[in-house]
């Protein structure tokens, strides 16, 4: 059996971001981290492989080649993923749809039984790629997974949805998107970091994938910083709070 997982880098959510001079992207000394949801997807693949044995795990990263290669090695291969695939692409102009089409082409070549993807990337926050990919492949999906089990050719997934937890059983091959409560991602062991350097990492160009039209469908025309909220007042005590909520805010 084969599992394909996502390994995307994102700018550190705690870093202060500046908007580029053309107003359509971020710039400056941006620190990157592995997208948290991809870490959950990677951990899930590793746990399934440990539990069931005989599962090959492959990580796919799409982006600026040197940096993305580093994230595939450190974030995925060092943790125990068997091998990596890197598709070099300009991160600013690849929308969710183009990413999904790249995944679909790689999936056609690799023929995985299960694709595990982070439910969203914490930069664009679009929450689309897994679902788009499932439709491109004509596969079933189970999104926002907080529990994943493999049983008799099915993947049984508990999903975090509005109102509670839903469970679906999906026939393989399928796409599952990982939510944060799925697991606690492990740290890469030192030995893993050494081993990762020797693990195979295939590099592909967009042209190799014969996407036809490699244009995004959605374009950012302007970025801005939302107006911040101003800090209010510190109240003395509960009486003061009640008085102000009543007289000033008029919400009691």
């Amino acid at each position: 059996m084969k599992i394909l997982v996502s390994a995307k880098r994102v700018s550190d959510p705690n870093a202060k971001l500046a908007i580029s001079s053309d107003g359509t992207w971020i710039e400056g000394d941006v620190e990157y981290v592995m997208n948290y949801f991809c870490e959950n997807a990677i951990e899930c693949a590793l746990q399934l492989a440990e539990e069931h044995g005989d599962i090959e795990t492959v990580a796919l990263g799409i982006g600026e080649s040197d940096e993305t290669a580093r994230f595939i090695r450190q974030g995925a291969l060092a943790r125990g993923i068997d091998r990596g695939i890197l598709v070099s692409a300009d991160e600013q102009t690849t929308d969710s749809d183009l990413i999904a089409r790249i995944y679909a082409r790689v999936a056609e070549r690799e023929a995985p039984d299960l694709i595990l993807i982070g439910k969203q990337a914490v930069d664009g926050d679009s929450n689309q790629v897994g679902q788009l990919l499932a439709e491109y492949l004509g596969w079933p999906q189970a999104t926002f997974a907080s529990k994943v089990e493999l049983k008799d050719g099915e993947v049984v997934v508990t999903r975090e949805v509005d109102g509670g937890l839903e469970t679906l059983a999906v026939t393989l091959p399928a796409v599952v998107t990982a939510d944060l409560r799925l697991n606690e991602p492990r740290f890469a062991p030192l030995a893993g970091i050494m081993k990762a350097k020797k693990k195979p990492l295939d590099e592909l160009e967009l042209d190799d994938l014969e996407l036809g039209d490699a244009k995004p469908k959605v374009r950012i025309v302007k970025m801005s910083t939302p107006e911040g909220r101003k800090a209010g007042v510190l109240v003395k005590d509960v009486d003061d709070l009640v008085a102000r909520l009543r007289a000033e805010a008029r919400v009691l």
Partner: protein
Amino acid sequence: MTKILVIAEHEKGAPKKLTLNTLEFARQVVAHAGGSYDLAVLGSGVGGVAQALTGYGADAVYVADHPDLAHVLAGPYAKVIADLAQRAGADLVCMSASSAGKDVLPRVAVRLQAGMASDVVGVVQTAQGLAYRRPMWAGNLTGDVVVETPVQVVSVRASAFDALAATGGASPLVEVAADPQAASARVRYVGFEGVVSSRPDLAEASVVVAGGRGLKDRFNQITEPLADLLGGAIGASRAAVDDGYAPNDYQVGQTGKVVAPQLYFAIAISGAVQHLAGMKNSKVIVAINKNADEPIFKVADYGLVADAFVAVPELVGKIKALRA
């Protein structure tokens, strides 16, 4: 001229309020670009829902009633919605960014060869045409995006739009023969473990009492009396959910629910960017935290530095006294 198809969401035989917020988004697009909108109701035994939506100015209310649509499953829903969009000649399909909308809409986009904008909070006119405004980077940045395909798909952040008021009139009901079967294959619905509550829906409540990790196993004991006194819903930080003090459905934030009530209490919540992403558009924010240095005080209108275990019961007592 735009033709919009709005996908209704419903529960227990009635439309959810976020359908009305999504209709307001559609109204704003029509105000910019001209055109009109249709509604679509999908489900099993949903005639009453459709009837309840005939007074909101839609050209037509399509009803796709089929036993296989009883649960919102992405594959079959996407197929039926895309079929309907083609039949209606829609060039914009929208639904709220609920967990169902997030699950289903991207598949609709692929079927219609459409680009999709997620979690849209506004409609803006730009030199490049009509753009959709959306929060990115946990709401630290805002992007105006243009969808460059003939058909567009949008998920709408309900809390950013008022509910459209009923316009009167009577949209015709149009029953359509839905064909979800082929797309239903290979997915089996196993079950649902719901959060049972008599409180208002978190996404729709005008008061939200949210608790954080600091409340520990007294989460309910502290949040419930205040929520019930104010007729509010209960929310939680991710840490409170992770640690098992609150169900996942309560989570407010970047990856949970986005709320914008009249009054939001953040009790023993530190105010991480991911939490702020879900509540910073609340009208009035009250923070109760024992540590005066926490970032939550930077967004709170009223901050009280105190031990929540003492301050919140006292607050409940004082409000009760006031009302007596």
